[in-house]
């Protein structure tokens, strides 16, 4: 549905997007993940044909975003980072305007406006002036605007920014429910959002794609085994020696990140992939008569994956 090939974008001497390529198939939800100023918005603006790329090609539904911009624009719903609203208009008037602008047939406008209002649960707000709405409702009007012409492709730039936790959940549910008939790219720097809503993730940093895979694959690809956090009341040297001898344990270190309680020592144990060592570690500590105050596995989150990928990239660059 969306094909991005070797896209580069320069703003004068600044390189915003550097040779980016990826594909999004029909019906997929793809998360576009990256720290601030990574090039997410620029890439999205190129896909929506808001601005041309310096180099490379992008096609949406088989149409080139530069040469056949009109066809692309007809098929895209775009929610920019700041929802593009006219504060002096009423919600329905605004949506009617956008519907007309997007080429919805006159007879269909009322129907489409009602549908968008219903999807984004804007019912009670539809006759209010947009400037009187709270940030959360404005965001929803922005989303309604993107949905108004039932586009094949939805491009959402940080759709949950500025919403309260309840609204965030609602918007995520809405996005998921839209996936059935839309192809969606959503950008975010909030990691749980990606693991909750997206099937596939494109991680971008400093204008370059550093990883592109399904959420599960990404998690397992950098899986370097389980890690444990221990709080043990005992001499560290001896503990290090004994636990280090346990089969499957890779390293035993003082955990500088955690604060030790009382006389206990905080220890971090990294294990080899695919081995479960918790039982053995606990047994070793108990048989040596040290006090085992805490034993907690740390599961790796997308956050670790993300940090690993983006910091690695920085080292390469430096």
């Amino acid at each position, binding site marked *: 549905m969306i094909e991005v090939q070797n896209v580069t974008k320069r703003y004068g001497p600044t390189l915003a997007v550097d040779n980016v390529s990826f594909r999004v198939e029909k019906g997929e939800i793809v998360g576009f993940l990256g720290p601030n100023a990574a090039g997410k918005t620029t890439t999205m603006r190129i896909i929506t044909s808001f601005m041309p790329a310096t180099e490379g090609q992008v096609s949406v539904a088989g149409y080139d975003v530069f040469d056949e911009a009109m066809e692309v624009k007809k098929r895209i719903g*775009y929610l920019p980072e700041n929802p593009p609203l006219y504060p002096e208009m009423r919600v329905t008037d605004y949506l009617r305007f956008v519907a007309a*602008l997007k080429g919805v047939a006159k007879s269909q406008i009322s129907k489409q406006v009602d549908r968008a209002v219903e999807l984004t649960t804007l019912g009670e707000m539809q006759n209010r002036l947009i400037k009187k709405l709270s940030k959360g409702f404005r965001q929803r009007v922005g989303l309604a605007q993107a949905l108004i012409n039932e586009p094949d492709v939805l491009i959402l730039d940080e759709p949950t920014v500025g919403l309260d936790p309840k609204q965030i959940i609602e918007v995520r549910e809405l996005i998921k429910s839209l996936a059935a008939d839309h192809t969606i790219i959503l950008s975010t720097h909030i990691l749980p959002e990606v693991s909750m809503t997206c099937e596939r993730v494109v991680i971008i940093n400093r204008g370059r794609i550093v990883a592109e895979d399904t959420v599960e694959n990404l998690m397992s690809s950098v899986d370097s085994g389980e890690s444990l956090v221990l709080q043990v009341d005992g001499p560290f040297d001896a503990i290090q020696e004994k636990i280090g001898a346990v089969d499957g344990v890779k390293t035993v270190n003082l955990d500088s990140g955690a604060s030790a309680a009382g006389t206990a020592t905080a220890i971090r144990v990294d294990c080899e992939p695919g081995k479960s060592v918790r039982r053995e570690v606990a047994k070793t500590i108990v048989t040596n008569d040290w006090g085992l105050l805490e034993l907690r596995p740390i599961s790796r989150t997308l956050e670790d994956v993300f940090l690993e990928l983006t910091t690695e990239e920085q080292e390469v660059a430096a």
Partner: protein
Amino acid sequence: MRNTWILYKRDLKSYFTSPIAYVVIALFVAISGVFFYALLTRFLNIQMQAMFRAQQMGQNIPVNVNEFLIRPLLSNMSIIALFMIPMITMRSFSEDKRSGTMELLLTSPVTNSQLILGKFFAAFSLYAVMIVISFIYPLILTIYGQPEMVPTIMGYLGLLFLGIATVSVGVLISSMTENQIIAAVGTFAIMMLFWMVGWLGSGDTAFSHIAQYVSLIGHMDDFTKGVFDTTHLVYYASFMFLGLFLTYQSIESTKWRG
């Protein structure tokens, strides 16, 4: 066509839902009213003197309303109109650029020309409403006398042509900045320049002819006399095309600059 109409309607509505339209129209009609009053007083004085002279010397030279009242009123109004243009056009594109709605407009299936024409005609319509409302002054005169309507209407047509040219400049400046104040001041500066350049037009050198030709207000003179000359029409039309063409370039170039 439909797209231009949709954009036109929205922009025009937004002028009239904000105080701008009312402030601009009120200001224009009020200032024109002051000039109307002053010119009317002057006209009555001249008329009184003429009547006095007629009694004394037996000469009867009728004082023409168009010559002594409507013509100077129209010239003054054309300059006041120049001062109103920046207020009318300052938000045209600037507001969209600042608030981010430009992203909506540029990612919708509308061409840049449709977008520019929609905005241009909306701003021009506000200008036209302002000019038409000021037509009450010549109408008031018809109650007490018989001003010639053909030259008066010609003068008003001239004001509308002046608007076509100047609104396009305002829209152009507005498309170059997201700051409404800069848009207004920039437009104002250009209006002043094209007004004052006419002052250099006295004398018979090539330069003064050019200065005279370039002046926005200079081309109003014939209209206020009730003369319709296509030269002036060509001038205002080329001014508009240049303004809109440069607006197109400006929109395109912001796209590339990002």
